[in-house]
């Protein structure tokens, strides 16, 4: 019988160059993907390097103490004597982002429970796209709406000028709602259905099932979403700057002007000359932001490890 293996590609001589070809092809492909990955690593290292090179200058060259930067209450880099207390900004950043998470987290959980347990069809076709749309709205638009709607509303409803931590937190809570909801929904969807059915089979109500079975098992994932939300809120700049007031002090109430790390950077970066101490102090704040990113990523990792277990 005529073996088909030899009727078209006959000569073994032909095989040699072909083999070269697929090896070369593979090598080119590998080279390319390694290049892409390496580029990412180069990017991240250069970001850390360049920001640190500016941000560390005040501590190294100008003798500003780290302690003052982290715990000082007074920010007056061009004053005499200059003061570099960034605690009010740290406070503002933490306060707004945590408060935003406190507002958004329960809403996000409820929305995801609604989408997975109560009305999955309606949730999937309407609520989920709606929430994803919230994520797509640009932050300047949020700032614009915050300044035009939330600030006047707060001003009329509560004592104070309307701007402040609460205004910032409200704007941010809408912005981070999608992050929290999406991750929570994914976690709830990926639950083995046997778990739920077992609970229902024992005669538990839906709420009992949700509160005793579903929420505890998905808690680490839910927290991951919250932490990612906080991270996003922490780094948001323009929307917050428009509604928070930007006074470099720790406010006495939620309705008093305050500042975040990001808003002080956007506010002052353009007004300072590069290389000046004031400018470098702002880079130090950027460095703090950068380090906080690492902290958030670390926390998320710890939480994810718990999910896997």
């Amino acid at each position: 019988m005529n073996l088909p293996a030899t009727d078209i590609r006959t000569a073994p001589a032909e095989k040699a160059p072909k083999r070269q070809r697929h090896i070369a092809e593979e090598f080119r492909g590998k080279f390319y993907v390694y290049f892409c990955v390496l580029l990412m690593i180069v990017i991240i290292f250069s970001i850390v390097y360049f920001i640190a090179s500016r941000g560390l200058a005040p501590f190294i060259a100008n003798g500003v103490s780290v302690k003052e930067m982290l715990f000082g209450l007074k920010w007056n880099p061009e004053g005499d004597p200059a003061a570099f207390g960034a605690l009010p900004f740290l406070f503002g950043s933490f306060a707004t982002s945590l408060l935003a998470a406190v507002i958004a987290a329960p809403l996000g959980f409820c929305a995801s429970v609604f989408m997975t347990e109560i009305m999955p069809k309606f949730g999937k076709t309407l609520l989920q796209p709606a929430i994803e749309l919230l994520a797509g709205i640009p932050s300047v638009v949020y700032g614009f709406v915050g300044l035009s709607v939330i600030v006047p509303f707060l001003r009329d409803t509560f004592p104070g000028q309307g701007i402040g931590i609460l205004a910032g937190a409200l704007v941010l809570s809408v912005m981070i709602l999608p992050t929290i909801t999406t991750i929570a929904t994914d976690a709830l969807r990926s639950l083995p259905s046997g778990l739920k059915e077992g609970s229902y089979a024992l005669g538990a109500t839906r709420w009992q099932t949700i509160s005793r079975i579903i929420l505890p098992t998905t808690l680490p994932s839910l927290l991951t979403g919250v932490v990612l939300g906080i991270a996003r809120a922490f780094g948001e700049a323009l929307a917050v700057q428009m509604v928070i007031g930007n006074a470099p002090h720790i406010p006495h109430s939620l309705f008093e002007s305050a500042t975040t790390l990001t808003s002080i950077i956007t506010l002052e970066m353009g007004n300072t000359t590069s290389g000046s101490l004031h400018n470098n102090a702002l880079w130090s704040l950027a460095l703090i932001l950068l380090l906080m990113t690492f902290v958030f990523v670390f926390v998320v990792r710890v939480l994810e490890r718990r999910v896997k277990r």
Partner: protein
Amino acid sequence: MRAKTVDRIATSVIIGVAVLIMAVLAALLGFLLVRGVRHIDFHFLTSFPQAIKTGGGIGPQLFNSLFLLVLTMIITIPLGLGAGIYMSEYAKQNRLTDFIRLVVEVLSSFPSIVVGLFGLLVIVNTFNLGYSLLSGALALTVFNLPMMVRLTEQSLRAVPREQKEAGLALGMSKWKTITSVMLPVALPSIVTGSILAAGRVFGEAAALLFTAGMSSPRLDFTDWNPLHPTSPLNPLRPAETLAVHIWKINSEGLAPDAPEIAAGASAVLVIMVLLFNLGARWFGRVLYRKLTASK
């Protein structure tokens, strides 16, 4: 009995929250669109902005936003695909891979302002690209890249293993199998995801303030030579995008109709994002159908 009452209350609270979220979104969209849409007409979308007179448009800004998006995607997609392919197909289970995964994660959670400052320091000043579209696109690449990498990785991982094995079993190199067999399968979800990511690029402002700049040269829309400084296609010219323009006229607008322009521009931006969202879903579906089902 009591458990049932609690259940009923909890259920209504949850439904209430869902309704609340829908209401917030509706109010938000309503507010933006009602205030903005009546300012949108052909003239508004195509004419140049006016510094102190009424009747300015957002033509160049709209063009800049779209062009910047295209530039960013041109840079991001090949790099993101490459790194995503590495993560899903070439990465071995070792510390290096863990480290790269960490890099992607950190890179994706950098605040946009930090990336903008980095862009100012390195791309604008050190590499001397100036405030330009290219600088802006490079800065946006920094955000978009990790998104693209994850997207590619997840989409490729979702490709059934048999597809890959089928390619390999035909005696193809791994690279060929990935690019010709697996990528087409993963394409619909990659496309959908990257259009959604593109919507986010469209609205980014903080990073662009420091990299793409806050003004445009007087563009000459009859000159399409990318080397001319006033040509719309010149990637080395400064460019104010729509999102940056909203920020600028909100803060510094001198024109008497600045609030209307801001409202109109916000509405345009939101409509664009909406289009991106719907477009992504639609396109992904069409692509999927085209690649799988019969015609």
